[in-house]
């Protein structure tokens, strides 16, 4: 095979791959738009205020797993205690932090040492101490020996008193109506809906971005944050919302995931065998329910429930994204027998293959595209005019998907200012040059580390935050 033949084959493979991925994204975006509109109407037609004050909405146990989160945790907990929902408790589990996480919590919430009883349905590392807030008795803090995030969440599950358990991240600040809006969706079909996740935005400093728990400021200045915000928008509005419409919602995100406690108990809680616990649990729920032939649904809502922290440097971003890639690979590989298996319905026939195409093999094609360009340039076989036109077309298609998700989110939340929208729209075409190479590099790195069996979390340093008033 000559260089020319190899290059042609490579170009053809990349083109077919790109067309396949873009076609599926286009379908998902269209579904996302329809679903977004349906949800907006639902919210208008439902009396959310009555729900927020209702005695008839089930109480929720919110579990926050924290490890070395001294700077972020107080704002997260404060926003949780400010939630507008009739009855809930907040259980913070400190997973053996080595910084002053507990001291900061004590400073803000006046922790009083107590002992409490625990259900002990899932085996965990031992809890060394419990604290109840002297300012708000709904807040319980458990200090345990380090065992990882899944283990910390399982301690929360053991302590959870209520029928619904909401796992959240310690670096996220929550909107006041986060629980109210989500639990409405549970109450529409409490027998079938077993899990819900919802849209989470990102910001450099979530506490400053979500003003008063209501008004959100879209990052529009720092390109790195803007592109991450767009990435989140696409992931939620164009993907997860549409997946849940077709019953293959495969990732209830760690930042905000509500599960029925009986389902978590049945499955033995979150698994410690994976780098990250959220995707794996979602896969496990699907497999378990489908194997048992039980009717169930796992949903993703387009409602913005909170703002989480986005890495503010390239190094942190790569560390985060390479971990995500490893997690996807670990989980997909563990559950590979579900792929193309009709027993698992849309999860096996659509969801798993979609993950395979859009996430698992993506780094292979990204590397192939780079190789084609380099090899073509070296051998003088590249038609630069054609290459430029293709890159431009890809840029526009990416921008189209980003704008679609931005539109869905703006229709849903009405939160973005016109000036911010203009700046974000202007930055969109540059994403392929500025952000994509970083994301691709992180994916390649993640794939490599997966192949080497690396399961470390590689936690990065938190961004600097404004001091809370």
């Amino acid at each position, binding site marked *: 095979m000559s260089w020319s033949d190899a290059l042609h084959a490579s170009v053809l493979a990349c083109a077919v791959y790109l067309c396949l991925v873009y076609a599926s994204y286009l379908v998902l975006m269209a579904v996302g738009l329809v679903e977004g509109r349906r949800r907006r109407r639902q919210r208008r037609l439902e009396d959310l205020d009555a729900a927020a004050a209702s005695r008839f909405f089930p109480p929720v146990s919110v579990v926050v797993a924290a490890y070395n989160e001294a700077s972020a945790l107080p704002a997260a907990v404060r926003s949780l205690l400010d939630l507008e929902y009739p009855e809930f408790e907040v259980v913070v589990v400190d997973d053996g932090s080595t910084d002053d996480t507990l001291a900061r919590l004590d400073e803000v919430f006046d922790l009083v040492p107590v002992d409490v009883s625990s259900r002990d349905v899932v085996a965990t590392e031992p809890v060394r101490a419990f604290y109840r807030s002297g300012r708000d008795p709904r807040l319980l803090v458990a200090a345990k020996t380090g065992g990882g995030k899944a283990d910390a969440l399982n301690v929360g599950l053991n302590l959870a008193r209520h029928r619904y358990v909401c796992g959240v991240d310690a670096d996220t600040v929550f909107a006041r109506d986060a629980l109210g809006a989500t639990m409405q969706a549970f109450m529409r079909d409490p027998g079938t809906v077993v899990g819900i996740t919802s849209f989470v935005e990102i910001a450099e400093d979530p506490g400053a971005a979500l003003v008063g728990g209501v008004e959100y400021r879209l990052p529009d200045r720092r390109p790195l944050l803007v592109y991450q915000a767009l990435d989140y928008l696409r992931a939620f509005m164009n993907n997860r919302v549409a997946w849940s419409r077709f019953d293959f919602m495969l990732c209830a995100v760690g930042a905000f995931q509500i599960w029925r406690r009986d389902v978590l108990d049945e499955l033995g809680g979150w698994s410690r065998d994976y780098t990250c616990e959220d995707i794996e649990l979602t896969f496990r729920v699907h497999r378990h329910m489908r194997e048992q032939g039980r009717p169930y649904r796992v949903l993703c809502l387009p409602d913005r429930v909170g703002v989480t922290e986005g890495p503010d440097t390239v190094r942190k971003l790569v560390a985060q994204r390479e971990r995500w890639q490893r997690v996807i690979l670990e989980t997909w590989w563990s559950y590979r027998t579900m792929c193309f298996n009709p027993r698992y319905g849309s999860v096996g026939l659509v969801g798993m293959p979609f993950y395979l195409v859009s996430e698992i093999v993506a780094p292979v094609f990204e590397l192939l595209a780079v190789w084609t360009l380099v090899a073509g340039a070296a051998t003088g076989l590249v038609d630069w*005019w054609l290459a430029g036109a293709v890159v431009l077309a890809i840029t526009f298609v990416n921008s189209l998907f980003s704008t679609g998700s931005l539109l869905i989110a703006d229709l849903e939340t009405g939160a973005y200012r016109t000036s911010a929208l203009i700046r974000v729209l202007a930055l969109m075409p540059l994403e392929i040059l500025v952000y994509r190479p970083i994301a691709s590099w992180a994916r390649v790195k993640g794939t490599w580390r997966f192949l080497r069996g690396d399961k470390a979390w590689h936690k990065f340093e938190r961004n600097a935050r404004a001091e809370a008033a």
Partner: protein
Amino acid sequence: MDGRTAAAIACALAGGTWSLLAVGALVRRGRFSRRKRALAAAAPAVALPPEPVRGYGWPDDEREATLAFLEANVPDTGETEDQVLLRRALASREPEVRRAAVTALGKLADRHDWAIDWLIEALAEGRDTPARVASELDRLAPRVGTRLVPLLGHPSSVVRFYAVRLLARHGEAGRRLAAGLVSDRSPNVRAAALETLRTVDSGEALRSSLRLLDDPNAHVRAHACRTACSIGGASAAPFVLPLLGDRSWAVRDAAVQALVSAGKDVAPAMLQALEHRDEPVRSGAALVLQDVGHVDELLERGDHTGALERIFAAGGERLRTAASERARLRGSLPAGPRPLASGADA
């Protein structure tokens, strides 16, 4: 068509579509901002009215038209033809339309009694999620009152459950009605009846709750603990105490919470329970003594009876450590650095 032409067409198509969508997003945002500003200038406290629904212009699309009507016109309705439309919406096969009708009825019921009747009917016939209908009816207490009575004998336990819970906001008479359901065949209804009875100060209610402490259903036993202690206070403690050792964690936890809510008067009964043959009862009693403040009191004034040691023996090491930390915080023990159980000292 050669590669260059194909690429150029793809480029133009993608670029054109993106530009259109981007301009559309900006125009929409501009309109929304203008509308928001105009409304803010007119009446700063008024919430934004719902956006117009596209489907409203299609008279043949009944579903869209009904939804648009329910969204836009509800606050001022009450006309006969509107009632006809609402009636049809409530009977619709579309859950979304029925849900909208329930929300509309909730608003109308503030002024029209017929809307209350329709909401009760919606609850009885399962027109919408019962929790949503019940939430609307709950706001309307005490006007709902005796209209709930027929629901107490409804064949569906879900309807009976919500009816009996709603009675809690209807005074003494409502709670008397609830007492009749403590023997219901459905455990959820029995638990709901106990919940409603919780605020009643009557011997009959107390007797009912004490009787249900032995109910085969854990959920009912948990509610019975709460109701018994809420009505009977510390006098109910000897009856609730054995449930500290219940086989269900939810009941054990409910028993602890219930006894704590009865206050410090439960301390003598709890001190006696420290000698109980069941370990969970002993540790539960220790937790109650901690939560009512008895442990701190003993530490403050000095204990010469050995009670503190018995509590710590029953409650375990964590209870002892927590108590000494609290004492240190209050200054009852020698001052020192705050010994928070951080990972650093693990």
